């Protein structure tokens, strides 16, 4: 039960943070990527604020044997840099630049701008499903 509440609360704070920071505005996110045009620096401040808090969280995490709920941490490896990582990041960047949306703001927008968000999220899930169907690993 506590686990469910924490997941919901975390998601809600994340969604409200996206809204406050202006990251639910695709034109603003696109503006950050428009480095050679009308560059909008806001996304850099969002990243800075988020990373500041998370950097503290990581130092706390290193002193903990287990999370508050559950037997152990489930964390991905940090070393592997392969063609999948690079290729995936290239493709993600293309989509991000085309629509001005990444997964978090797109899903959050389902509650506030249903029609465009639903089109993007449906296509995103189709892309995820396509990867799952075609991935040989």
């Amino acid at each position: 039960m506590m686990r469910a509440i924490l997941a919901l609360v975390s998601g809600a704070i994340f969604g409200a943070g996206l809204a406050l920071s202006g990251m639910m505005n695709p034109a603003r996110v696109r503006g950050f990527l428009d480095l050679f045009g009308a560059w909008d620096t806001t996304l850099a401040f969002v990243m800075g604020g988020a990373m500041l808090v998370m950097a503290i969280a990581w130092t706390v995490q290193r002193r903990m044997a287990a999370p508050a709920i559950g037997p152990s941490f489930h964390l991905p490896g940090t070393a592997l840099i392969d063609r999948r990582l690079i290729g995936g990041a290239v493709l993600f960047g293309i989509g991000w630049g085309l629509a001005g949306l990444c997964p978090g703001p797109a899903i959050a927008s389902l509650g506030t701008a249903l029609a465009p968000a639903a089109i993007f999220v449906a296509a995103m899930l189709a892309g995820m499903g396509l990867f799952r169907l075609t991935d040989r690993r």
Partner: protein
Amino acid sequence: MTLPGFPDAAPLEGFLGGMMIGLAAAIMLLGLGRIAGVSGLASRAMLIERGGAPWPVAILFVAGLVLGAILFGAAEPIEAVFPPHWAWLVAGGLFVGYGTRLGSGCTSGHGVCGMSRLSPRSLVATAVFMASGIATVALVNALGYGW
């Protein structure tokens, strides 16, 4: 608050909203022992991904994202300008969905969580998807389709 030279930027709102995003990711990490990576959690919530976070955690986090935005939007209007044609959304969504699964993360997992952990893997991924996004916008603008 505005920045000299960048009249459209919202640095204070961005920084405060960013801290909320960091707090949300910290709750997932220290509370549940998980990375708050939205692409992975969304994929898991829709049962596209077999492994990863427990399904209830994934679906409730995703529901929370929507709820948080709705609650914020009830207090203050959320400014949002979407692409001018649905084709941008379809093409963008397909690339984002496929790419984030192939590359195992997006702006939240690699960007916020991985970079603050100084993960070389996430630092490379973030540099690459930002460069790719910048190149894409520059190309779209050069072709005369900027919006």
